[in-house]
């Protein structure tokens, strides 16, 4: 049984003065335990909407979300909160990911399920390499650097001991050198605790670095999916080819050189 199963999800947004926007159009996706699935697409592809549908932060027009066997649509209120607690988000914009008036201590304590002792909070910070932990507990989020805020985001997600982390552009907002460090952190966490990832990103290099399977999203639909190495080496869909062509990596284009 897959850890996360998205079945035929659809979501349409009503727009004033324009046609309705089909953000997500009949999308199905699974994430197995212990794996990392990358959902790759550009802005407007619907990937962030899909993440919110999976977390049931917004309600889908059609389709189901099953997490660890439980159908999230059949429950609401307290039952929903219980069912979804093992699925945690890490958001893109670390500057809006925290209540600016709360200290790190409060932020982590709110998230820590069961054990909200000082020792546990320090342990969480240690896991994401925010040291010295005690000093960080007293700080406010806007006193931290971009990389540190991203680590805090991850620490908060870890507080509930999740089995799935849905990370929306976890490396954006961090400097180049810090990105690699955070990627190491995510890899270590997976090795230690077997947490699964649904990685949402526009960065093919990130998907290549870190995912087992990849799904390419374009205008609300998944246009191609499969094992990451296979899809990247032999893309089938035209959009995937375009994406790969556009990537400019230090070593060379992942696809062919682009034209104007």
């Amino acid at each position: 049984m897959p850890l996360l199963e998205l079945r035929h999800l659809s979501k349409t947004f009503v727009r004033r003065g324009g046609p309705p926007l089909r953000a997500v159009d009949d999308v199905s996706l699974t994430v197995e335990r212990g794996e990392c699935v990358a959902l790759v697409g550009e802005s407007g592809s619907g990937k962030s909407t899909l993440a919110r549908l999976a977390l049931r932060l917004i309600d889908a027009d059609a389709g189901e979300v099953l997490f660890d066997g439980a159908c999230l649509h059949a429950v609401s209120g307290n039952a929903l909160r219980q069912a979804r607690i093992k699925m945690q988000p890490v958001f893109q914009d670390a500057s809006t990911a925290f209540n600016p008036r709360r200290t790190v201590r409060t932020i982590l304590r709110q998230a820590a399920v069961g054990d909200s002792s000082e020792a546990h909070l320090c342990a969480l910070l240690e896991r994401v390499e925010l040291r010295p932990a005690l000093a960080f507990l007293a700080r406010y989020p806007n006193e931290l650097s971009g990389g540190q805020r991203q680590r805090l985001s991850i620490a908060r997600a870890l507080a509930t001991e999740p089995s799935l982390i849905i990370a929306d552009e976890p490396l954006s907002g961090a400097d180049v050198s810090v990105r690699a460090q955070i990627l190491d952190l995510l890899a270590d966490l997976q090795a230690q605790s077997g947490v699964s990832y649904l990685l949402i990103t526009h960065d093919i290099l990130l998907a290549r670095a870190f995912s087992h399977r990849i799904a390419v999203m374009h205008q609300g639909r998944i246009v191609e999916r499969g094992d990451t190495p296979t899809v990247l080496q032999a893309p089938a869909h035209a959009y995937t080819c375009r994406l790969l062509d556009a990537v400019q990596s230090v070593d060379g284009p992942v696809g062919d050189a682009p034209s104007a």
Partner: protein
Amino acid sequence: MTQALSAEPLLQVDTLQVTYGPRDRLVHAVRDATLTVQHGESIGIAGESGCGKSTLARALLGLLPERVGRIAGGRIRIAGQDVTGFRETQWTGLRGHPVAMVFQDPLSFLNPVVRAGAQIAESVRQHDPDVAIAPRCRELLDLVKLPETVLRQYPHELSGGMRQRVMLAIALGCRPRLLIADEPTTALDVTTQAEIMALLGSLRSQLAMALLVVSHDLGLLRWHCDRLYVMYAGRTIEWGDTATVIDRPAHPYTRGLIAASRLQRGPGGRFGALRGELPAHEQIVGCPFAPRCGEAHAICRERMPDTTSIAPGHRAKCWQLNSRDASA
């Protein structure tokens, strides 16, 4: 490229220092930047946030915030003319021609209540008073590969890529000899980024224009720049031919940065080769990278390294180079 390397570089920056803020709380955004741009060349400035590259780009056109930012030392020469001490009135004669600039976020730099065509026309009127405006605008749109309908549209009606092209058209209306692009594609989608950079490349050869691109994206710079400068903590710490710097980086920071940009596991199975982050209050004495450097010796913490020549045109500031490379 019609102009060969002439004796006088188009842009020459020597040991530039830029500071921000009141004198009791000075922030040294740029501590020691040296760079040269020849006519028709394409130069990249690479670095992370806090390295001073954007400040440097703005200083080149006198765009530092009034009263808060100032050039504290060094010299800038544009086409042989010393512009370091220029006042605002003197800068207006230089901006656009011979040096123009495009920025990261076109939405904030384009006037939202004026149509794109009018903004391009304004640039033409300013710098090319004798030419017929409407045909010249159409010519510029053609150069940036935009349809004529864009002339009548407002910035918010255009996509990110189209807005960036409009900004390019405005810049090109000034017939610049040097175009400075500060993070020109950061706000854009991946596919659009590639298109814009390719456009810049073709414009460069079409118009015999020099290009100075400031970016944190090494991958982008690798494919579009002849020469590369790497900045750290307000200093240019390594520079040379792009291919040389990327394939045979000399400075430990450059090596770590390139490895990190790849997002591939290194020999140790790790993605990241650089520890820590740029400290908020950098040490004033010695090499600024020493706290993070795996090869730091005592001398690195005591004195700022001199410039070592590694190969013709390839230089870096690191004490450890003499022991490693056979240099001239």
